[in-house]
């Protein structure tokens, strides 16, 4: 936690501002098409809901080359249409800086947090720069629980398409919930509110140069908040409509960063999660309402083909992580999988796979990258299974399916603890196949 990481330009700009009560950060990389709307909604939110506070909007940019920073600084806001009841006492400042260090969302957040800490902010929020559904109310919902109700961390709660956020639904939410006992539905949502105490704690940590610097940041923030006993709530933000993630980005790298962060934090907080059983709801603010969502087309054939290929080629890597029973079930599925009821990765098998990978991640540090990247075909098979299983189901019914998956993870937790502590480790019952 030091200000030396802030450049001279940043120091100079902050000195001109002096201080701030609220900081809203927007990380970006080539988001010129959407960031203007996000900035406008944020500024409107600050002026409408927090007119008595000094607000600053910080854009932390990864050296975009499409004019993202210009869009942040030049986007206009028609205040006549805002119908403000109270005239803002202070102007909302907008700043845009390039961040330094490892390219990624986490590094962008780090700069935002450092600036918020430097300005002495009473609350900080971060919102994604690719949002199309953000409204000024989001800013209110992310900040008010901190400023007026004493919460330390506000997680988002959205309505999403049943096939949107599949890493969240299939791995991060069930695993985080079963480990730490709190039902934070969108632990890697990307839009959060953070109190200064938690902000300080984030900046004190020395693991910013890991996957935290990239896509691991969201689960890192949520897990620290939960595991270290900060007060957590959720705010219902409506629909999350956003542009697809960078299509050039490698899925296995993204999976690696997110799941790797979850597994790494499992080691950091093993004394915390081992002591917790079951799970409980988290306070949810905001008025819940139904929303229309963008349809999402999914090509399950391609996913199943990737899985079959994985079974043919990656057996050796999987065999170092999976127990004999799980490995043989997976290989059998590789020969027959078609998404039908008896031929798919069901909840129980999926939970077992993830938990065995978590144990392997702990026990084989050198093989971690291989293990995590080799998870991609299994993940794709699970997503395809889920898509085929829920094809005809409405959102509420899909939510029940996700609940069932979470319960599978919770049921397997005692076994996870036993294996984590060295009892009956899967590698002691290795599959015979070991080719490469």
């Amino acid at each position, binding site marked *: 936690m030091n200000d030396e990481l802030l450049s001279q330009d940043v120091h100079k700009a902050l000195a001109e501002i002096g201080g701030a009560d609220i900081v809203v950060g927007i990380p970006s990389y080539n988001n010129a098409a959407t960031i203007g709307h996000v900035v406008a909604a944020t500024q409107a939110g600050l002026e409408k809901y927090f007119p008595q506070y000094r607000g600053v909007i910080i854009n932390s940019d990864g050296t975009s080359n499409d004019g993202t920073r210009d869009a942040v600084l030049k986007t206009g806001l028609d205040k006549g249409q805002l119908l403000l009841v109270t005239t803002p006492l202070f102007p909302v400042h907008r700043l845009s800086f390039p961040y330094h260090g490892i390219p990624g969302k986490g590094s962008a957040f780090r700069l935002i947090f450092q600036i918020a800490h430097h300005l002495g902010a009473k609350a900080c929020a971060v919102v994604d720069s690719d949002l199309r559904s953000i409204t000024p109310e989001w800013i209110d919902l992310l900040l008010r629980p901190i400023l007026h109700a004493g919460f330390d961390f506000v997680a988002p709660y959205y309505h999403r398409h049943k096939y949107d956020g599949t890493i969240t639904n299939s791995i991060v939410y069930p695993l985080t919930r079963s480990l730490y006992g709190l039902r934070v539905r969108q632990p890697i949502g990307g839009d959060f509110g953070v109190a200064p105490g938690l902000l300080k704690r984030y900046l004190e940590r020395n693991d910013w140069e890991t996957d935290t610097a990239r896509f691991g940041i969201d689960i890192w923030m949520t897990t620290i908040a939960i595991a270290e006993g900060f007060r957590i709530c959720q705010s219902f933000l409506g629909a999350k409509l956003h542009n697809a*993630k*960078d299509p050039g980005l490698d*899925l*296995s790298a993204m999976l690696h960063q*997110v799941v790797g962060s979850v597994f790494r934090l499992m080691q950091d907080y093993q004394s915390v999660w081992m002591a917790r059983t079951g799970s409980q709801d988290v306070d949810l603010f905001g008025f819940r309402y139904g929303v229309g969502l963008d349809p999402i087309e999914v090509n399950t054939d391609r996913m199943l083909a990737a899985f079959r290929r994985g079974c043919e*080629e990656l057996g050796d890597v999987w065999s170092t992580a999976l127990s004999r029973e799980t490995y043989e079930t997976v290989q059998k599925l590789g020969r027959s999988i078609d998404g039908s009821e008896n031929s798919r990765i069901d909840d129980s098998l999926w939970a077992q796979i993830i938990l065995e990978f978590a144990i392997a991640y702990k026990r084989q540090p050198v093989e971690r990258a291989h293990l995590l*990247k080799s998870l991609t*075909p299994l993940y794709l098979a699970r997503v395809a299974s889920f898509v085929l299983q829920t094809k005809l189901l409405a959102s509420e019914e899909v939510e029940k399916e996700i609940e069932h998956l979470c319960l599978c993870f919770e049921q397997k937790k005692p076994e996870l603890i036993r294996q984590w502590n060295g009892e009956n480790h899967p590698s002691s019952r290795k599959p015979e196949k070991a080719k490469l």
Partner: protein
Amino acid sequence: MLGLLKQIISQTAERISSQVLDYVPGFLAALFILAVALIVAKSIRWMLLKMIKGISIDRFLRKVGLTAGTEKWKAPQLAAQFTYWSILAIGALAALNSFNSQLTTRIIETAVFLFPKLLVAAAIIVISAWLGRYFGRSTLVWAVNENMPSPRLLAAAVRGFFIFSGVVTAADHLDFARSVFIAAFILILGGVVLCAALALGLNGREALHRYLDEGKKGSAESEDRPLWRHL
């Protein structure tokens, strides 16, 4: 005539017996040293097997990714066997030394001078094999995720490259057929580079066309890519 024959036989017998008598003490000493070395080696192997059971060497090897390929041999057995044969080798050298001849002295000198080099060469080969295995796996996982053709072949090529590089380095270190290995290495590397250049050149035009087409279609097509909203 008979007397002469007797004399020749007795002189020969004397010479042989004197030569045998010269070697007998050395031979007995060598046998004794070998027997002691064998007893010591067996005792230490037994002790090591008992002691190492308590140390989690297997766990350590699993952590550094060295378990595959040695799964038939447990790490404690490997360590014990290595120690056993090392002691026996030292015993054999000491036994040879007891003959105190020029030949044995030269053999011992060569062995003593070669031993550190052999150790370094073995270490080079082990490290290159480990690197080959690691990067081979990286290539395999990457190739499968990227849907590349023949991922196992690519992985084997990477692994082979590392192992061959290790062998060339080890041979160079031992000064053993240095020019042969280096020439083979350069030839193979040159061949690989030439093949890669030809493949790139022959397919480059098509790939460039595809790339430009993708650029024209812009973001509309990018939505079709498989990376949709996983987070």
